[in-house]
């Protein structure tokens, strides 16, 4: 039995997309009433939920407070039922710690933290269904939640993954494509300025191809931005209509 053909000669991927096409994105903001900000996103079959609390006083040990800016606290978790196999993931395992740190890195770059010194912003993200591009989905949903909370930001943080198969860069990898084990790149971008908030790569990729893959990821992140922007505007419009009554 031959392995899966990730990119056919006709240029179609396993799920019927072309190399640079994104999966369908659907998102909603303000899904929880009690949180300061919340959002839900579906990128294909990857589904994630984010809630934001803050900025508020530092909770726990006071010594963690930063004198000049707000502390961004990110926590990631995934539901037991999120993957094909049911598996209990204890809180604070390596993967979720790393994911939390990476989220924090991306959001510290985007949130205007110096406006809220000695305070804390909490971002909690939970993945409900995992089908590739988890990091990207988490960043995107967290952006919407932070926006929903009304925390001032420099720009959206839009993320997308990209891979490399047979000399072609693929944008927005699904689980099948990730599982094939090729090189994989996760990019979080501030689309207006084009600054990179985070860049991470798994597996080996030759230097010569990096530019191509990076370009694919960046373009995909800009596409994500267009979608998220539309979601935000629609949400604001709806909210203003409600307020207007």
């Amino acid at each position: 039995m031959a392995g899966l053909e990730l990119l056919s000669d006709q240029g179609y991927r396993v799920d019927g997309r072309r190399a640079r096409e994104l999966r369908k994105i659907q998102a909603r903001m303000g899904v929880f009433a009690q949180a300061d900000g919340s959002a839900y996103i579906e990128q294909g079959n990857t589904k994630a939920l984010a809630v934001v609390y803050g900025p508020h006083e530092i909770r726990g040990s006071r010594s963690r407070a930063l004198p000049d800016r707000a502390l961004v606290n990110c926590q990631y978790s995934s539901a037991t039922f999120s993957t094909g196999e049911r598996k209990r993931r204890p809180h604070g395992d390596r993967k979720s710690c790393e994911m939390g740190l990476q989220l924090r890195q991306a959001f510290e770059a985007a949130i205007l933290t110096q406006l809220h010194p000695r305070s804390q912003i909490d971002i909690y993200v939970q993945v409900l269904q995992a089908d590739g591009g988890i990091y990207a989905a988490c960043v995107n949903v967290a952006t919407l939640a932070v926006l929903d909370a009304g925390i001032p930001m420099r720009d959206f943080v839009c993320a997308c993954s990209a891979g490399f198969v047979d000399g072609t860069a693929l944008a927005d990898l699904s689980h099948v494509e990730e599982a094939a084990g090729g090189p994989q790149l996760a990019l979080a971008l501030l689309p207006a300025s084009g600054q990179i908030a985070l860049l991470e790569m798994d597996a080996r990729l030759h230097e010569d191809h990096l530019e191509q893959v990076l370009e694919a990821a960046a373009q995909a992140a800009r596409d994500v931005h267009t979608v998220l922007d539309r979601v935000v505007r629609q949400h604001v419009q709806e909210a203003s209509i409600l307020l207007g009554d």
Partner: protein
Amino acid sequence: MLKSKTFLKKTRAGGVMKIVREHYLRDDIGCGAPGCAACGGAHEGPVLEPQPLDPASSLCPQPHYLLPDTNVLLHQIDVLEDPAIRNVIVLQTVLQEVRNRSAPVYKRIRDVTNNQEKHFYTFTNEHHRETYVEQQQGENSNDRNDRAIRVAAKWYNEHLKKMSAENQLQVIFITNDRKNKEKAIEEGIPAFTCEEYVKSLTANPELIDRLACLSDEGNEIESGKVIFSEHLPLSKLQQGIKSGTYLQGTFRASRENYLEATVWVHGDTEENKEIILQGLKNLNRAVHEDIVAVELLPKNQWVAPSSVVLHDEGQNEDDVEKEEERERILKTAVNEKMLKPTGRVVGIIKRNWRPYCGMLSKSDIKESRRHLFTPADKRIPRIRIETRQASTLEGRRIIVSIDGWPRNSRYPNGHFVKNLGEVGDKETETEVLLLEHDVPHQPFSQAVLSFLPKMPWSITEKDMKNREDLRHLCVCSVDPPGCTDIDDALHCRELENGDLEVGVHIADVSHFIRPGNALDQESARRGTTVYLCEKRIDMVPELLSSNLCSLRSNVDRLAFSCIWEMNHNAEILKTRFTKSVINSKASLTYAEAQMRIDSAAMNDSITTSLRGLNKLAKILKKRRIEKGALTLSSPEVRFHMDSETHDPIDLQTKELRETNSMVEEFMLLANISVAKKIHEEFSEHALLRKHPAPPPSNYEILVKAAKSKNLEIKTDTAKALADSLDRVDSPIFPYLNTLLRILATRCMMQAVYFCSGMDNDFHHYGLASPIYTHFTSPIRRYADIIVHRLLAVAIGADCTYPELTDKHKLADLCKNLNFRHKMAQYAQRASVAFHTQLFFKSKGIVSEEAYILFVRKNAIVVLIPKYGLEGTVFFEEKDKPKPRLIYDDEVPSLKIEDTVFHIFDKVKVRIMLDSSNLQHQKIRMLLVEPQIPGISVPTDTSNMDNSEPERKKKKLQK
């Protein structure tokens, strides 16, 4: 644009897993037909022809496209590959099924699709909004796929109707499944079986023979008798192998005996490594090189390998009883110790069938359409094929593929693929030996040729980047006469400080062949240029090999130069590598160069340069030999060809001049310098060449042979061997030295390419160099191209790419190169053998002096120095009384009646062509002197009366 469709894909056993995958349906997939308004904006350009007129079919006279189903593609790929079949729509569903079921067919269909002249279009129906089909409840995936194919066929017909009403384009569904066809016709899709369609092609009747015959019809009715036991299904085999009841191994049929075979068991177990299979039923339809599962028989049924030669000659297939009788012959009484593990084939794990070359043995019945095909390789069983053109195919070399081997058939069923030509015809035989040695020799494809530089070609500014201009140097090349692929040139000049500058300039092939493109892939696949006696199978297209890369005189050419600064003692002071442009001042032959060096009157710059090189080369050679490099010898022959007919007129052993060794010396030096450099730079993934030291046991025959002549050969080190070979000097027997060197060559191991990161023994035994590689012939060896690339990266003249620094990929490449080199060598030898036959065919019967090279139990192997020809003189013949033979392994010698033969004895033999077996013609040798009554033939060639009158008559008739 995107329609998302989520669906449950599958559950896997052991912890049920629910897999959900997205499946996007699109509306932007084109139908591939030109002029289609609906798909005008589709991504790819049109692939199919607008008005497909031929092949003319009596069944459907209108223009039409074909749409085959999976089984047609799998089994009738030979038909589809025929140039007559064009305009075929391959559905994605079909392609995926083919991919899962047969990798070779999948590769072939992809090749066909890429060939623009074939107009094959792949339609991604699974992602098309209107042709996607969901699996229904109670429907298995095969039925779903069949339905998907029908839906697509129907869509196509309606779609094309919409396009233009008047030109009546049709899509014809080709399936061999009766039910599927009925359903299709019910749904209004024009459908035919492959056979019906091919038979309706009035213009191409020869296609019918290429149809694969499938066992489901016809064949079964005839002989209901089951000969073989059933093969077990794969799942059972795997279970059995796991539990140890069955063993998995590669099936190797015996050349001598068609009823016997061995199976090499995979794995590390020492016992039962080799299992013998005997008898048709135990062989159970396995074919040479198949991977099979074997069951061991109880010990009381074990047998010993028989020494009987048996060839399958039966014409009538139903003679199974006769077979059983013959099998009984095998079971001669043997002692217990000889018994070996014996088994029987219970199932086939993987078939390794390929197309086979051979000849048709026409059926005795004149009207019969079924004939047996005898492959050239004796290990392959005869194949039954069905053809109407038997009389035209008789006496010709043809290619046949196996389709299957039903249980009730004595022979496998196959179909005719290709007619190569007349037996004995030079071109046909060349084709056969290329095919049998798996030498890729098809003309280069369009895709490959598209990467060639456009003509007229000239050196541009961009080419000059990272390149040194060495056009002012007095460079010249020295090659054999008639050489058009010149890949090396040399220069030597005196520097101001009195030292010498020596440059070796190698054609810069890697400049033209860029990594990863089709041209590169094709060259990597071919691996080496193959030189046959009158033909050259190029590794790179001719434009490169004989023009742009060839360092011809008086034109600017790109080169890769290795430049040394040396003192007059040939000690290297400085080594430098650079990409360059050179302009060769002269392309000389070895003889011309030698003449220039020798004649005192010549004093031009080329000649002085040559003299300088020659002087240095002599010092280098001396130093190399002191270090223990071996000078070996093998009888190499050259044919003088008739310029008109290209028949060989005369044989000549190759002559060696000083200039040959001059060029060789500098090539060795360049190779060693480059090897050091690339290994220094890329310790993990340098491509090097090694020559392992042979195990001492290999030398046994050489030492024994020398002893019989009262000589001592030391084989502890290469140096000792070289010295003792040099000491051999017999005034009465001057040829002895050469003979010993020939023998020594036979003791050596094969030199191989390897990747430095995968091995730690780099030594080159024959050249006595700690490290070695191939750099100097990039036009004819792919290894050199890789070395060029590595070196270019090392000196910063070119950029690297991922595959270059991947040692596993490099190791795979080495494996292919080693295989290709070996095969090329075998093909060359086969070509020489064939030309020798042609030569003796025209020459008739001759008697020549010869030396004994080896002594065997029932024969002597002799070498005829005049022709460089080696042959075997047998002393046992089928229908003659056996002479008294006493073989002594220690000396070694053979005593026949009263005459004793030792190694190196001089004898006289008669050479003649034996064409009693049309498929395997060979040179036959008979002893003339010393005379042994009853064995040797009379000295006088003119009156051969009693020895073999029949054979002589045959000769005269020709």
